């Protein structure tokens, strides 16, 4: 396999509703931004693409991918769509990586989008809930916030996690997003505000949950030779990993913890894993990505993490899956300040999904673009201020997650220059 580099990225600002444009020109905004950032790249030099979008229901349009492909002027180059719920963007990023790593393509464009505004929020929640078993789960009261709420209620029971700790995640991410011009929501909030927000599904309130959005994001990946021609600040994709778990939460087993290099079986005596309190797919994705990148102590060796915080609870659970702390210590981890912007390992310096929004197919690619700019050291150029630039960031992790932890991707990005 060849080394793969990210050479450019672009995001069309996520927003509640883009009624001014249909999805194709919305993707073109992100694509043009990425193309303008590598002026030496011509459309001729692009070998193919991967399209990322989650739902055909939202637009009531099948084969949206090819409509983007032709609008961007990429026909008749090779292309395909990937889909895996909330992790669609992460899967797309890794598929584009594989197209370049295998030698099939030298330059590959990963584009992702979602237009969720075509239906009202509650119909949108109904569509999303169709991503649960329609024989046994959806008809009981299909609602994703309800599913994640049940998972965190068990996390609270097993480990003593509190609603205040969940709220601290929201406060941190909104605080970061305040300096991110791409953020969909800019709020100055306190733990009390989060706790007092209207309850959606106990213990998750309105400010514990990301919003639906319209938006697009684009990543351009290349082999070493093309990367050197296109930019003096390429970012190497050091490794990719992915894990899966059963669709029905009821089916999640009670077995042994999958251990990371810095853990031992003694750490988890008597803990039934993953149950519904942890994401085995996230742990598997992390284990593979760490092994392939030679990471043995993630907290020490990662300079930042952009993870899938569709719910504040998922961020806490994901600290543990990624081994930033042990299982059960996610609540203390947020209290310790370690994931803060000025902490040992900033988590979601961009503001994450909570503040930036979650147009499903674009989200995982948006995380890649923000991580890419961090490692390039170009946050100031793209954000118009450098408040969120992590000084000397050399290695970052991006994490994309499908409900309720069914597909999870983990990719490690590194600064080679």
């Amino acid at each position, binding site marked *: 396999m060849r080394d793969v580099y990210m050479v450019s990225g672009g995001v069309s600002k996520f927003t509640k509703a883009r009624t001014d444009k249909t999805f194709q020109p919305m993707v073109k905004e992100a694509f043009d931004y990425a193309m303008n950032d590598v002026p030496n790249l011509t459309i001729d030099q692009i070998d193919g693409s991967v399209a990322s979008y989650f739902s055909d229901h939202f637009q009531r349009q099948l084969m949206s991918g090819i409509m983007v492909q032709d609008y961007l002027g990429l026909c008749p180059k090779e292309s395909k769509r990937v889909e895996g719920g909330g992790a669609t963007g992460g899967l797309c990023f890794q598929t584009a990586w594989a197209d370049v790593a295998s030698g099939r393509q030298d330059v590959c464009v990963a584009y992702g989008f979602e237009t969720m505004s075509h239906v009202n929020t509650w119909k949108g929640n109904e569509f999303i809930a169709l991503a649960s078993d329609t024989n046994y789960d959806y008809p009981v009261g299909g*609602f994703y916030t309800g599913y994640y709420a049940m998972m965190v209620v068990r996390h609270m029971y097993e480990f003593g996690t509190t609603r205040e700790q969940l709220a601290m995640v929201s406060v941190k991410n909104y605080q970061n997003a305040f300096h991110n011009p791409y953020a969909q929501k800019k709020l100055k909030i306190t733990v009390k505000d989060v706790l007092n927000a*209207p309850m*959606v599904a106990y213990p998750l309130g309105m400010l514990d949950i990301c919003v639906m959005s319209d938006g697009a994001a684009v990543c351009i990946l290349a082999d070493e030779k093309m990367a050197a021609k296109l930019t003096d600040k390429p970012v190497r994709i050091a490794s990719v990993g992915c894990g899966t778990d059963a669709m029905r939460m*009821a089916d999640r087993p009670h077995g042994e913890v999958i251990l990371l290099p810095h853990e031992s079986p003694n750490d988890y005596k008597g803990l039934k894993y993953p149950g519904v309190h942890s994401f085995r797919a996230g742990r598997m994705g992390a284990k593979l990505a760490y092994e392939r990148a030679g990471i043995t102590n993630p907290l020490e060796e990662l300079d930042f993490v952009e993870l899938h915080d569709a719910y504040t609870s998922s961020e806490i659970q994901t600290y543990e899956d990624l081994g930033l702390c042990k299982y059960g210590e996610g609540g203390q981890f947020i209290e310790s300040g370690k994931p803060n912007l000025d902490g040992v390992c900033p988590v979601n310096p961009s503001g994450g999904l909570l503040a930036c929004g979650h147009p499903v197919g674009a989200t995982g690619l948006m995380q890649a673009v923000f991580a890419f700019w961090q490692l390039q050291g170009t946050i100031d150029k793209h954000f118009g201020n450098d408040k969120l630039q992590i000084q000397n960031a050399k290695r970052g992790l991006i994490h994309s997650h499908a409900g309720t932890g069914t597909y999870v991707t983990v990719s490690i990005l590194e600064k080679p220059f």
Partner: protein
Amino acid sequence: MKKKETKLPETEEGTVLFNVPFPEDLSQLKKMSPIIIKWPYHIDYIHSYGQDSPFFAGLANKKLVGTKCPKCGYKYATPKYHCMYCGSECDWFELPLEGKIHTWTTCHFGGEEFLKETPFNLILVEFEGVDSLLLARLIGLSQDEIRIGMKVKAKFRRNSQFKPTDVYFVPAE
């Protein structure tokens, strides 16, 4: 003091519009506002429960049935016809009608289909000696009364709708 609600709720009732103004000067068209229309969509699916059908037949007869792997012995409270662990074809067995709350939530909002039923409780039920869980509604307790580990018992609708909500749970004591 609680902030007063100063926003009318958004509805999907619209006006039927048969024409819009059009400029003489076509260069003005780029400044046009988007035309947004209502586009209804209704489908009746012909949905087969397939290999899961006995579970629903069971509910109609006030019985809960799960599946058991004859090879590795794994017991599924939510039926799986083939074992996830060894791939064998499973057999049906009768589940107890009493179990414990493994985890729970109270939904104050939901998907559009269930919005009118809010607030409602969801629980995952664990049964003694059974490896996997069952998702169901819990009736009769409010958010601040529900605890993990509480004993619950199954109740069935008299007129079956052939949906998993034909069974629901209530406190056992």
